[in-house]
């Protein structure tokens, strides 16, 4: 599905203070596709994905050069509200981080602080989001239980539901299954494959088989550079760069 491009990184350099973390990144994120970012620890992949919704701005001494656009518009422009970017480009983290509230309130919260007051609308949205996150049937009878009583896999799907409720366009996943058991991992991967029909997805993963299973395109990062980017089946059967070949065949990393 090589259709239009939702986000573009162009000539991105990124620094924490004087240390250069990312160097000359040029990458396209295709609409309704899953783009996987792989590479060894410390290669800059988590740093890169955080640029896509301006999370890097929460870190002092962070400096970005180059541009990142969403539908052609620079997301870093002064006139752009970072909160609005983080609504449109949502994020799911490695360790599930539900609020210490009920399952219902976890999802309602985002809607409420964005100004939604209509109780019926909120209730419908909570149900819809839980269904989209493939969690509804497991929690429908206990919406007012604490979210912290859910299993790790369920908490992660709750975080996905929370993200979906505020109607993002792009969803970023930073090693979403790293703390999940194999069955929960499988459920989240199946969910990602469903979600891409509606959303655009970027996933950082250190698990190459996961990248091979769920993604349409894969970018290989090494020491702050994008070494190779291509269709997932090409990257994993016939990579062009020797470093990509060495990494995915386990010769290093």
């Amino acid at each position, binding site marked *: 599905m090589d259709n239009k491009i939702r986000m573009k990184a162009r000539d991105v350099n990124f620094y924490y203070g004087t240390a250069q973390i990312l160097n000359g990144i040029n990458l396209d994120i295709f609409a309704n596709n899953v783009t996987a970012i792989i590479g060894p620890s410390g290669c800059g992949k988590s740093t890169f994905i955080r640029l896509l919704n301006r999370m890097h701005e929460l870190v002092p001494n962070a400096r970005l050069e180059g541009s990142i656009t969403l539908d052609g518009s620079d997301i870093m422009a002064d006139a752009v509200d970072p909160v609005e970017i983080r609504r449109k480009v949502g994020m799911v983290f490695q360790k599930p981080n539900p609020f210490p509230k009920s399952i219902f309130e976890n999802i309602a919260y985002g809607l409420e602080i964005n100004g939604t007051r209509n109780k019926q609308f909120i209730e419908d949205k909570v149900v819809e989001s839980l269904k989209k996150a493939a969690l509804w049937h497991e929690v429908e009878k206990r919406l007012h239980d604490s979210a912290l009583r859910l299993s790790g896999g369920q908490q992660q799907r709750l975080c996905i539901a929370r993200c979906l409720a505020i109607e993002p366009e792009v969803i970023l996943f930073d090693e979403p299954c790293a703390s999940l058991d194999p069955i929960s991992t499988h459920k989240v991967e199946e969910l990602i494959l469903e979600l891409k029909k509606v959303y655009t997805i970027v996933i950082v993963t250190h698990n*190459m*088989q996961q990248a*091979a299973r769920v993604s349409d395109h894969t970018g290989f990062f090494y020491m702050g550079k994008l070494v190779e980017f291509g269709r997932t089946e090409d990257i*994993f*059967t*016939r*990579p062009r760069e020797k470093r*990509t*070949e060495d990494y*995915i*065949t*386990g*010769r290093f990393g």
Partner: protein
Amino acid sequence: MGRHFREELEQLNSDLLKMDALAEEAVAKAVAALRDRDPVAARAVIDNDSRVDELELVIDERCLDLIARYQPMASDLRFITTGMRLNGELERIADIAVDIAERVIVMARDPFVKPLVDIPRLTAVAQKMVKMAIDAFIARDSEIAKQVLFLDPEADSLRDAIHKELVEEHMMKDPATAERAVQLLLIARFLERVCDHATYIAEDVIYMIKAEVVKHHPERL
């Protein structure tokens, strides 16, 4: 994907070379039995084929096992899938040696309908093509593999020449020679099939090395 995986890949490589040795030996012994009109030697080729079959099964199992356990990627994946294909091709070549050996037994000690001239030539081409294809695999050299593909038309011409001579110079002129002539005709066809299998091996080796598919697409060579 460390040392253990690499060692298992080495083992697969060894097994494939063993398979090749068995297949090339089967062909060599079958054509020697033909040359010597030796049904006992031919019988030995037929009896030995079960060893080839068993090794084919072992190699197939090893390849599946490697894929299931290690989820290999890129060049490792291409090596393993090519290994499975080579395994099948070499087993077919050994089967063709059996087919030749069976003709030798049928012909028993009857004189050949004519002195063998082109059949030994075709035999030499077939053995050369198989050896080169495996050399290409061992050396990971796609240029050697290409040379195998360029030899195939010579094999086809020799088979056609043998066919023409046997039919026109012998079967049509003296129908009493038909039974013996047909045996030689079949052997020519079998040898040409060995050449075909060598070209399939060469095509697979090119894919393994370069990730380029030339199978069914000679224009890409």
